[in-house]
Structure formats: C-alpha cells, structure tokens
C-alpha cells in the first residue's frame, strides 16, 4: 500500500511584517478528511494560498500527492482541487457556462457526477450566477472543485452560508469522496461541531503555528475540562494544564491527559477537583485564547 501522505508540509515559513506563518510541519494522510481550524487570522488561508503557489514561502517545502508546489506546480494543480470563499464566477453569466468553462481545463471531468452534484446541492445550469444567493455561489464553487474528481480537495470555508440541508449534503459528498481510500480532503472551517463529527484528523492553527494535531476523537478525548480550587501561581507552569478562567482561588482549566493527570494536579495542591469531557469547540476556545 502506498502510505505517502496526500499533503506533506515541512519546515514551512512565510513572514509578513505583522504576521509569521510557521515554521510549520503538517501531514495529511491519504484517504482521510483533515480539518484545519484556527481563529481568524491564524494563517489558514495563507497556508492554503501557499499550497497553490500564491506567494512564495521563505523556507520549507509543500508536497501534494508527492508533487512539489514550486517545481511540479502544474502536476500539483492537476491533482488538487481548490475551493475558496472569494471565488467569483459572475463573468460566466449562468451556471451552465461556468461548468462548460471549467470542464474544458479538466480532462477528468465527470458529467454524470456533475449532474448528481447539481441535484444534491440543488442548483440548476440555467440559473444566473449574479442572482444566486451567497450559499448558491458557494455550492457552484464546490461543484466546480468536486466534479473533476481531483485526488486531493482543498476547501477553504466550504460551508459558510450554507443551510443545514446543504451542509449535510456537502459532508455526505466528502465522505463519499474518501470512500475509495485514494482521495483526500483538507477542509478549513469554523463549524467545529461539523468538523468534530466528520473529520478523521484535525490541526489547530494559532498565530501561524500548529498548536495541536491528531486524530479528531483522540485529541478531544485526550483532554478534559477540570475545575478546582488552588492558588493560581502554583499551577501556572504545570505541563499539560491550560488555565481558562480564574477567580480568587477557583480555577477552570483544560487538562491534557497525555501530559498531566488529576493525581498530578492534586499533588500540586489542587483541591475539590472535578472533571468532565469536552467538545472540540470547547477545547479550541481555551487553547486559542
């Protein structure tokens, strides 16, 4: 079996006057759905843009399906589909013309699958792009990225503005895409409950760095919410403990059970320790505070 990752990013760095992305190492396993999450301005879009050759990194390499993003740029773009919220197709007039235009560039375009996507997403070739709703344009963008069946799909905020039905339809399609174990999806999104449900792996990007990464369920289950009473100063530097809120001597925090345990917490002087599981969203809120 070919175990080469679908996307492999190593030592990537891009510096701007006010923001630095990286150094970043990230690996997306083939056949998986990988969720890239991070607060606004964390560097998600910068990273995705770099993959597609928009801007040159200062250091590091990016490979998609084994193709280097600078030396094999054409091959990479023949294997990787892109969707971003800023894509505009208005100049093509109607949905059908946009489809015919993009199809011309993509020898692997699948007409039957395109028809299926038109139906499940609920758009028609006769519709005027200018009068499509925001969600409608998102659907068109997704259709154009999906219908040529690229090996790797990189989707930047693909469900913003979609209603619950359409969102479910999109995730259902993404699960169908990874079904053959050959194709891979990288998705950046703020819809954390969706990502918790549908992704196999997540990476949390914060201020240009990858804060935490792993199999989604493992990452979530590895952490728990803890509450206790303690002097704050005592616990500030306990590895694996991230303090969320502190009021007098009451403390609410998140515990990484790979690095710390309730026993260790008590040894540090925490009293009345209570713990409970958390969601990806709750983990995200504390880690990226």
């Amino acid at each position, binding site marked *: 079996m070919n175990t080469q990752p679908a996307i492999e990013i190593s030592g990537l760095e891009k510096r701007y006057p006010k923001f630095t992305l990286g150094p970043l190492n990230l690996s997306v396993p083939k056949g998986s759905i990988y969720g890239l999450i991070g607060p606004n301005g964390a560097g998600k879009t910068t990273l995705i843009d770099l993959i597609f050759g928009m801007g040159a990194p200062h250091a590091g390499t990016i490979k998609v399906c084994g193709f280097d993003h600078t030396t094999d740029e054409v091959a990479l773009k023949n294997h990787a589909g892109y969707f971003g919220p800023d894509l505009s197709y208005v100049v093509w007039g109607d949905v059908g013309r946009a489809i015919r235009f993009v199809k011309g560039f993509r020898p692997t375009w699948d007409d039957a699958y395109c028809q299926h996507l038109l139906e499940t997403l609920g758009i028609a070739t006769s519709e005027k792009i200018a009068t499509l709703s925001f969600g409608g344009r998102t659907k068109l963008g997704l259709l154009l990225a999906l219908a040529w069946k690229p090996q790797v799909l990189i989707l930047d905020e693909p469900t913003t503005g979609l209603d619950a039905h359409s969102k479910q339809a999109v995730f259902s399609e993404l699960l169908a895409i990874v*079904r053959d174990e050959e194709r891979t999806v990288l998705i950046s999104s703020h819809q954390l409950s969706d990502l918790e449900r549908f992704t196999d792996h997540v990476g949390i990007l914060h201020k240009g760095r990858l804060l935490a990464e792993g199999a989604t369920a493992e990452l979530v*289950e590895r952490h728990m919410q803890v509450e206790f009473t303690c002097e704050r100063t005592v616990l500030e530097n306990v590895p694996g403990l991230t303090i969320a809120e502190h009021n007098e001597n009451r403390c609410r925090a998140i515990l990484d059970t790979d690095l710390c345990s309730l026993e260790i917490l008590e040894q540090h002087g925490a009293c009345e320790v209570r713990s409970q599981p958390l969601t990806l969203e709750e983990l995200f809120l504390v880690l990226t505070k």
Partner: protein
Amino acid sequence: MSPKSLKLLLPPVSPAASGTLYEQLVAGLKQAIGDGRLTPGEALPSFRQLAEEMLVSVITVKRAYEELEREEIIYRRQGLGTFVAEGGANRSREAKLEKARKLLNEAAREAAEAGLKPSEIRSLFLETLND
C-alpha cells in the same frame, strides 16, 4: 451479496444522545446483533460505507468496529470484509447486561447518596420495573 444498508437499522448517531459518537455506534450495533436483526455470518458494510450512511467520520466507524472485534462480536476477514460472529448475539447481550449492571450500581449509589436505605432502594427498583 453486498452488505445491506444499516442506515435505518441503527439508531441515528447524534450529539444530542448520550455517549460519544463511536460509543453510540457500538451500542447500536450491539443492539441490532443482540436482538437478531443482524445475524451470524452476515456481512457488515465497510467502515467507509457505514461512515457515509451514518454521516460520521471514517475513524469513528473504524473505532467502533475495532471494539466490537475485540469483544468478538464481529470479525474481519482480510479482503472479504467484516461479518457478524457466531455467538455475537450472546456476547452482545452479555455486554448489554454488563452495562445494565453498571447503571444499576450507579443508580443505587445515587439513591444512597440521596439518603435512601437499602430496603427503600430495593422498592424503588421494583417500582421502576412495574412502571
């Protein structure tokens, strides 16, 4: 024969239900195997197929299958697929029983913490049964 769809045979996997998504899937499969809706030798969908049917990540289904495999309720044959094990129904029922015992223990502890005496707890259990 290709495996039948489990979409409507299993309870929906929902964040509003108790337990993690994969635990819900394990419980649903045990229920279906325990009450004979899935029979020994019957093929189960691949985990990628079930992920698509239940709208959960592939890894969630993989974990559920691995747990059921460990408990010998289902088994995997390389290249052929995953099947309900001979005796899987019994083991599913045992697992259910084990869980029921745990929940009853927990209920007894809650009742004791509420100040009920053993005799009162016993009648509480009987009352619950008669409802």
